[in-house]
């Protein structure tokens, strides 16, 4: 059944819809792949074997009754475990949520079910999506299928590893400072952070609400576009979702790039960038030149301030969002607390891991009396300047091309003892979250050590369709190898 796990999502949906494949066979093949691969990769916190097979049988019987199937007919999808699936435990890879069963489906999960997709499991992440390596999961470390000694990236590391190792053709991640794009780059996938407001976040456990965005992870641009088409759109239950959000994305490559202007922001190619990454990114850009694109050197002068800005804003929002985990309404509660205050303090002290506590503390400090203006308010002003950089540069060019990460996947333990070094691994992805624009990572080569390299393409807000088309064009030229069997 191995070949079924190599099919694209688009192919599965087509074949299940026309009856040449049974949804149950597809689900069973992926479940069996999980049984053989996941003990090594450890992408999943929970595998929903029974639910997935039952959903697949229902889809098959729906078709047998002559009903038309949805866009994702019979496509297994792995869901990051910070997104609610009704009746299923949702942990955020944190001890504090142990035992919490989602009382409702996130809007995007409802939409996926309407499109006849199959939720196959919940994937590992850095606790509350805070981290860049999956080493911050309270449960276990997910490994990179390309090299089991390397991190899969984070925070959507489980979602990336599941798709790279062909345990699912598609997955959902969430991206606050690069948490879709960085693991996509590390695992050789297409990962899209859609424009802020394109996808509803109702039912996503919030980390930093002005930055969080849910998006697809896939082995091809076409599949990423298919998944995006199924989840995009305005939602009354998320007042930050945009009423102008489009809902159809094709991911078809461009015939030619004539007339397209691609900007190469010089701040992203500064010293410290791995030479192999620089070379691969330039190869992809040079290809776009050969098919007619105009490539320009541009500048985003406030780039150097993005990481500092992010590490004030994101923890501040997290400190506020995570106040709800207090041992009263859900999750675990500390024993033997003598007062309400002690109940909160002990529950949170025992329940949160080190990185989550660090960020709650940092955010609380930045918002505290006497420091608010120096930190939070100043960071929100810096954010305006960073967003203006993009506005200005998009008057000159249509897209930006940059590396997704300064290095390929690093080894376990390499950065985990130094929070600042870990924070810097998101240096190229953070600015798009601060500005809210559409941004994706697509594989553009391999290092000598056979680790994937990601090209980041950035477009103005709501140009997600054009961004996917450009990515599909690059994809055709790069011919990135699929990962076949691994150790």
């Amino acid at each position, binding site marked *: 059944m191995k070949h079924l796990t190599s099919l694209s999502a688009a192919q599965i949906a087509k074949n299940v819809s026309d009856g040449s494949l049974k949804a149950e066979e597809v689900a069973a093949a992926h479940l069996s792949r999980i049984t053989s691969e996941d003990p090594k990769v450890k992408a999943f916190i929970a595998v929903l074997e029974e639910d997935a097979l039952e959903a697949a049988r229902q889809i098959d019987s729906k078709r047998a009754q002559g009903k038309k199937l949805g866009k994702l007919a019979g496509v297994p999808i792995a869901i990051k475990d910070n997104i609610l699936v009704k009746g299923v435990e949702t942990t955020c890879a944190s001890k504090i949520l142990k035992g919490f069963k989602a009382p409702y489906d996130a809007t995007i999960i409802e939409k996926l079910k309407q499109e006849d997709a199959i939720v196959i499991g919940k994937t590992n992440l850095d606790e509350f999506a805070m981290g860049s390596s999956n080493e911050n999961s309270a449960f276990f470390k997910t490994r990179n299928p390309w090299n089991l000694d390397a991190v899969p990236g984070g925070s959507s590391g489980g979602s990336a590893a599941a798709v790279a190792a062909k345990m699912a053709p598609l997955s959902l991640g969430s991206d606050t400072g690069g948490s879709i794009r960085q693991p996509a780059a590390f695992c050789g996938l297409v990962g899209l952070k859609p424009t802020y407001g394109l996808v509803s976040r109702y039912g996503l456990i919030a980390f930093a609400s002005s930055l969080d965005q849910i998006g697809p992870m896939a082995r091809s641009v076409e599949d990423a576009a298919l998944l995006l088409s199924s989840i995009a759109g305005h939602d009354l239950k998320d007042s930050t979702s945009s009423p102008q959000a489009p809902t159809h994305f094709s991911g078809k490559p461009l015939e030619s790039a004539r007339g397209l202007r691609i900007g190469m922001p010089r701040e992203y190619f500064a010293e410290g960038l791995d030479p192999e990454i620089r070379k691969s990114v330039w190869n992809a850009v040079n290809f776009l030149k050969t098919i007619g694109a105009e490539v320009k050197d541009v500048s985003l002068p406030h780039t150097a301030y993005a990481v500092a800005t992010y590490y004030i804003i994101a923890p501040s929002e997290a400190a506020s969002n995570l106040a709800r985990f207090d041992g009263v309404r859900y999750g675990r509660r500390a024993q033997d607390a003598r*007062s309400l205050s002690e109940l909160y303090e002990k529950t949170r002290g025992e329940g949160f891991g080190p990185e989550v506590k660090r960020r709650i503390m940092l955010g609380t400090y930045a918002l505290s009396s006497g420091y608010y203006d120096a930190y939070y308010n100043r960071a929100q002003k810096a954010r305006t300047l960073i967003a203006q950089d993009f506005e200005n540069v998009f008057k000159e060019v249509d897209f930006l091309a940059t590396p997704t990460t300064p290095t390929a996947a690093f080894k376990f333990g390499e950065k985990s003892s130094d*929070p600042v070094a870990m924070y810097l691994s998101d240096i190229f992805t953070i600015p798009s979250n601060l500005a809210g624009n559409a941004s994706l990572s697509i594989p553009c080569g391999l290092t000598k050590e056979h680790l994937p390299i990601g090209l980041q393409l950035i477009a103005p807000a709501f140009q997600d369709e054009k961004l996917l088309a450009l990515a599909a064009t690059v994809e055709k030229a790069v011919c990135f190898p699929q990962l076949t069997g691994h150790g």
Partner: protein
Amino acid sequence: MEKSSLITKEDVLKIAALAKLSLSADEVSRYQSQFTKILDSIAELSRLNVENVPPTSSVLGLKNALREDEIASFENMEALIDNAPEKDGPYFKVPKIIE
């Protein structure tokens, strides 16, 4: 936000109290040294001229998202209460707060 924002043990304890986090002695000393390092790494922001720059409130410029305030029923009330670590009928149970 000057260079080398030295964070004391008392600072860490004060922030932890504001954040309602109980920390071990070990954590307090670890966060103390890491905080100083993190704050140093973000100190560059103090050199940026932000005079007359408005702070960002919404990246898309969305203003108020208004809708009719209509009552909707939530189908799965029991599941909400079932998630509570301690409950009493349809209520969440907490330690006594009024003597």
